[in-house]
C-alpha cells in the first residue's frame, strides 16, 4: 500500500542533500559510519554543508578536505586510531570552517531535544568548560525546582540524517543492531532520513521484530542498497573495522596534495557503489568478513 522509497544512492543524495544542508552522520560513533553516502556527497561536489555528529571518525575530515563543509557541530573530529584529522586542522587553522564545540552528551541531548520536538534539554555536563565560548547552543540555567545550576543545550534539527543499517525494506522499515550511539534520536530529529542498507529484505522480515527498528519507516525519505556502505567502519553482522584503511588515511591526508590523490582514487574514480568493491578487492573483503558468528536467540511476538 505504501510506495517504494528505494532509489540509487546518487539519486538520494541529489534529492535530499542539497548545497547548504545540515547533515547528521556518524551517529553510532565508531561503527556503521555512512562512508558511501559521504563519498557520493563529495562526488556530487556539494558545498556549504553543516556537519552534525558526536564522533565521525574520518568521515568529517574527508568531507571537509573535499570542500563540502562550511560548519561543523561535533564533539570530536579526527582519526580515531591515529588522532588528528589533517583536513579538519587545515580548515580550522585557515578560518575556512566554523566549529561549534560539543561534548558527546551535549550532542546527544541536542538531538534528543530535536527528536522530542523541544527547543532545549538540560544537562549537568560542560559547566566550567570553554565549550560555551564556541557553542551558542549552550547556556547556563537554574533548575526551576531545585535552583541548581545546569547547562541548557539548544535543539539540533538536521535537514537530513545519513544512517547506515544492516537491513531495510523498500519502504524504509529497517533493523539496526550493535552500538546505537545517537542514531535513534538523530533519525527522529531530522527532517529527512536517508538510509543506506547492507541488504534489502522483505517487509515481513523487519515486521517480525519491531523492537529491532531504531528509526521508524514513516520518518525515512529514501533507502539505497549499498553493501559495504560503511567500510572502513565496522557493521555488526557483516564486516569488521578495516584498521589499515584508517592508518593509510593518516598519510593520505597529511597535505592537500596527497588528499587530492586519495580523493581521485577512492571517490572521483568510483562512479557506482559497486566499483568501490572492485577497488577494495575480494581478498581485503574476505579478511574483514566475520570469522566468528554470534546469533541472537529468536523471540516470539505471537498472539
Amino acid at each position, binding site marked *: 500500500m505504501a510506495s517504494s522509497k528505494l532509489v540509487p544512492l546518487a539519486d538520494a543524495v541529489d534529492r535530499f542533500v542539497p548545497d547548504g544542508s545540515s547533515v547528521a552522520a556518524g551517529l553510532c*560513533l565508531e561503527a556503521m559510519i555512512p562512508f558511501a553516502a559521504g563519498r557520493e556527497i563529495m562526488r556530487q561536489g556539494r558545498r556549504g554543508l553543516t556537519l552534525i555528529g558526536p564522533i565521525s571518525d574520518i568521515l568529517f575530515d574527508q568531507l571537509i578536505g573535499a570542500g563540502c563543509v562550511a560548519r561543523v557541530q561535533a564533539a570530536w573530529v*579526527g582519526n580515531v586510531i591515529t588522532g588528528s584529522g589533517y583536513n579538519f*586542522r587545515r580548515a580550522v*587553522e585557515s578560518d575556512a570552517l566554523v566549529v561549534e564545540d560539543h561534548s558527546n552528551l551535549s550532542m546527544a541531548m541536542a538531538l534528543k531535544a530535536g527528536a522530542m520536538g523541544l527547543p532545549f534539554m538540560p544537562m549537568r555536563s560542560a559547566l566550567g*568548560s570553554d565549550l560555551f565560548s564556541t557553542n551558542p547552543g549552550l547556556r547556563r540555567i537554574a533548575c526551576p525546582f531545585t535552583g541548581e545550576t545546569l547547562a541548557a543545550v539548544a535543539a539540533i534539527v538536521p535537514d537530513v540524517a545519513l544512517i547506515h543499517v544492516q537491513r531495510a525494506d523498500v519502504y524504509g522499515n529497517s533493523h539496526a543492531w550493535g552500538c546505537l550511539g545517537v542514531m535513534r534520536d538523530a533519525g527522529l530529529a531530522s527532517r529527512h532520513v536517508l538510509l543506506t542498507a547492507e541488504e534489502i529484505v522483505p517487509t515481513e522480515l523487519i515486521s517480525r521484530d519491531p523492537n529491532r527498528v531504531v528509526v521508524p519507516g514513516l520518518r525515512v525519505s529514501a533507502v539505497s542498497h549499498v553493501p559495504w556502505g560503511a567500510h572502513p567502519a565496522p557493521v*555488526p553482522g557483516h564486516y569488521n*573495522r578495516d584498521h589499515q584503511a584508517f592508518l593509510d588515511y593518516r598519510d593520505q591526508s597529511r597535505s592537500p596534495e596527497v588528499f587530492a590523490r586519495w580523493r581521485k582514487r577512492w571517490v572521483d574514480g568510483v562512479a557506482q557503489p559497486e566499483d568501490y568493491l572492485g577497488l577494495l578487492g575480494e581478498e581485503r573483503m574476505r579478511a574483514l568478513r566475520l570469522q566468528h558468528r554470534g546469533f541472537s536467540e529468536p523471540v516470539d511476538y505471537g498472539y
Partner: protein
Amino acid sequence: MPAYNASELMICAAAREIADGEVVFVGMRLPLLGFLLAKATHAPRAVGVYELGVVRAETAPAPILTMGDLPNLHRAAWLADTADVMGLLQSGRVDVSFIGGAQVDRFGNLNTTRVVGAGGAATRLPGSGGACDLACLARRHVIIMAHEQRRFVPQVDYITSPGYGTGPGWREREGLPRGGPASVITTLAVFRFDPAICEMEVASIHPGVSIGELRSKTGWPLRISSTIIETPAPSAAELAMIARFDPKRFWTGAAG
C-alpha cells in the same frame, strides 16, 4: 626485572586506579588496556561502560583497537543508546573514568581542543568527544598523558575537560555535581590532588626519573607528596597480559 616501556608502566598504573566491582567509563588507547589489565588481575568484577552505548562485564573475546570494534559488542551486557549510558554517568553511577589530554594545568584542567603555540598560532585538536562529560560527571577521573613542558602549562589555552578550575570551591560554584581528577598518570610520574588546595602533587615517580627532570618538564612550581614512592614497575605477568590485549603492540609499541 623484565624490560618494559613507559606505555606499559602507565597501563599498570591505570589498572591500579580501578577497584574491584567498580563501574568504569573506559575510553580508548592506554586506559582501555589498563581496564582490561585490571579485569584480568585484581578487579575481575569491574564493569566497563563505553560512550557508544556499550556496557560489558566480560573482556572482549579478541583484541580491539577501538571501542566500536565488533569483539567489543559481542556478548556485551548491554547495547543501548549513548544517552542511556550517559545517564548512568550523569546520575553518579560511574565510579571512575580515564581521559587523555594535550595540555593540563596544576588544577587538572585539561585541553584537547585548541593549543596556542609560542608564536600565537593556534593548532586545532580533535576536541572533547566524551572527555568533558567524564570530567564533569564521573565520581573521579584519571588523566593519562605524555609529560612534556609544553603540555604541563601554567594555564591551559581552552578548558575542554574541567578539573578543579581555579581551586577549592570552583566546581561547586560552576554547578558540577561531583567528581574532579583523582590522579594524573604521565610518562614520568603519578600525581594525586591535595584536597585542601586542589593542586596536583607527585605521589610516585617512575623508576629512573629524577625530580629534576620532572621539575624541568612542568610549567609551574612542582609540589611533591611527603609520602612519595617509586612507581612499581610492571611484573612479568602484567606485561604478558598487556601483550595479549595488544598483540601487535599498536598502543604499546616503541613510540611508547
